[in-house]
């Protein structure tokens, strides 16, 4: 039965870790703007384009 105290202790530490992760996320401003990241994530990283006159990298191709 004593093992249950160890387990409870571990579970509290894990949960506390998540709580601090959440607090850190709020502190670092991740909850301040909940719209822009949803747009930003859709851009493709583009390979460097050497010629500046051609449009070979159209996104809808």
């Amino acid at each position: 039965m004593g093992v249950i105290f160890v387990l409870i202790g571990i579970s509290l530490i894990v949960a506390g870790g998540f709580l601090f992760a959440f607090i850190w996320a709020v502190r670092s401003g991740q909850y301040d703007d909940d719209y822009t990241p949803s747009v930003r994530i859709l851009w493709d990283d583009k390979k460097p384009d050497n010629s500046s006159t051609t449009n070979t990298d159209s996104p809808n191709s």
Partner: protein
Amino acid sequence: MKESPAFISVSDRKPTCAHCGEPCDTGHFVHQDLDFCCEGCQWVYQILHDNNLQEYYHIQQTPGVNQRVRELTDYSFLDDPEIQQKIIDYASVHLVKVTFHLPAIHCASCIWLLEHLYKLVPGVSRSQVDFLRKKVSIHFDPTQVTLRRIAEMLEHIGYAPALNMGQLEEKHMPVVPRKLYYQLGVVGFCFGNIMLLSFPEYLGIQGDRAAYWFNYLNWILGLPVLIYGAQDYLKSAWHGLKNGGLNMDVPITLGIIALFVRSTIDIFGQFGSGFMDSLAGLVFFLLIGKWFQQKTFHHLSFDRDYKSYFPIAISVLQDEKWVTMPLSKVTPGHRIQIRNNQLIPADGILISRAAQIDYSFVTGESDPIFKRTGDTIYAGGKQIGTPIELQVTKAVGQSYLLQLWEDRAFTQKKETRDHRLADQIGTYFTLAILSIALITFIYWVGRDLSTALLTITSVLIIACPCALALAIPFTYGNVMRLLADKNMYLRSTRIIEEIQRLNHIVFDKTGTLTAVNQYHIIFQGMPLTERESRIIRSAAHASTHPLSQQLDHYLQAHPVFTLDAFAEVPGQGVQATVEGIEVRIGSAVWTGAKDTGQQRQTVHVAFDGIHRGTFVYESRYRSSWRKTIGALAKNYELSLLSGDQDREMKRIRSAFPATSNLLFNQKPKDKLEYIRTLQAAEQRVMMIGDGINDAGALQASEVGMVITEDINNFTPASDAIIHNGLFPYLPKLIQYIRNSRKVVFGAYFLALAYNVVGLSFAVRGVLSPLVAALLMPISSVTMVLYGLAASTLLFRVMKLNDLPQAEWVQTKVDDLYQ
């Protein structure tokens, strides 16, 4: 042919600009097989193209903002260390952080381009856009690039930063109140773990040593819930009691304290497992309700004052040279220059020959006023036409017209007391549960003291009006969201209750009953021939005066001729030579007409010195304005306050009930006083206005509603902002808000039913923590679901979800901030 669809120009139709997407009707530039409507758009395209940023045109088709009206701002004031210090968020030797407000941000391409600013401006290390607030925060190295250079580049690519005087004064605040998130996180954590540790209790395992340890742990986890999570409720209740009133937070606090005290006794006396799970659950639900209710509309600003319309810097004559100087340093004696459409920031004497000042910004009177050399010009007006020079006579902010802002309506805060209804009910509720608790206590105390103590805490616990406290946040929070979907924005849920209590509605005329800058134009005189119409339009087309522009719009079916000569005299009119004919458009004197003493809203036309006729401008009223007023008159007393003269009195009189007060020639201060008079007569007033000239009245009334088509435009001192397309539906929307009160009453009824059930356990002294733990979340969840469902259903039943979805006008940055 290019692959991207953004570059395909449809040849059989009018070409549209590859940058901004507007038709190239006034100009047509072709560059690299692409059409552009103006040089400005082409420049922007060129810059982006040269810097390998064409992706801008791929994310969104024609994402640009039209650059036709393009006057480059002189940003040299950004080199001034004093101004820099006020704008910059953080500065060190190699890193400066600054946040700009860019009203032109409107699409995904904008975000992309602005976040790739480092490609355009070497020295910028990072730029991050907050789309909803239209802000970009930029990190740069001050040794490589200056603040001024960044602002210039932003303007160059079509995103001129909005810099105004108001910004200099406001302190940098965290954008979102983060405390509620912390509270939710902490209480959520405690709630989850307490539930877990309460499992032995739920499963009926008792007497085990482990179960006691779990109870102690629960008690420890309950401490942050009480001290941190519930602190706002405890404080508010204490505050209420101190001021001698019982608000809704009093019974909640009674319940919380009863839960905590009883649990502490149970746990440490080892009588039972306590009610810590109920306590944590209660606070958690309350916080969620609070979070739901605190919906904010980031892109709106309900509290602008006049300072946010003033520029940061202005042209000042110094040592025979025009320099840009921060407005805060402009003192009496300075000679300043005001450009077309720029707001005059300080009182002064006119040095230029003539000026035409539009005071609608402060007075609401829409006709421009003509001024001559030596006349005093008050701050708050806008010059229309050619630039003028002024000798400043009073310091900025001490102007005669801006005294309105010194009124106590602005210096005192509006009553921010939350939810009268809840507080009223809270009062009765507290009295009721206290008497029930007392009766049970008296009943039991003679028989068994420990049972008596048990029942009194049980009664307080079970009667804790958690469900009651949730009814308003969720119902009204949902009402607010539904209305926002249809472009009616309320400042907070408190406004819903204010609207329910109204009995008097006051209208502004210009811009509220009438549409902004739209006129009915009628020509008086012999009908014009096609050629004459074309000549008149050609002359009007070239002029910047608002009346000319209206005329140009009115005659748009007639193509323009090329002008051979053109001159514009402020306050008089324009003279042009077209097709060999000398045409004059303007005032009666200018065209040689007899001054008939008619009101000013007319434009005269003369060909070769002979008066040809007169265009009469009549305000255009919003569609079905009579119906709207008629519908509102059934439930409310109505009044009208207009800054204009009473020439349209008859027309308006017929729409209003005979008992309504219609007042004309009202100065902003008069409007404010009128609202006060009504309030003194026990009226609860809603003011519907549109501009800063109504600000005093909007601020003083119980509900100040601003009607606008441009969300970035005038929204001073308002409690509600509605799109002007919603005007015909206003009676229905108000009716919906009134009806939502019934939804809340329904919720209260439901909560009462739960309480009766719970109390029947409590008074008999048989309330187990398990029953409490079950009853509390069930009642809370049903309350939340009921509030959301009933308010949405009501919205549908009233057919409000069929309302047209109105589009907001995209702000032209040049109009707003110069």
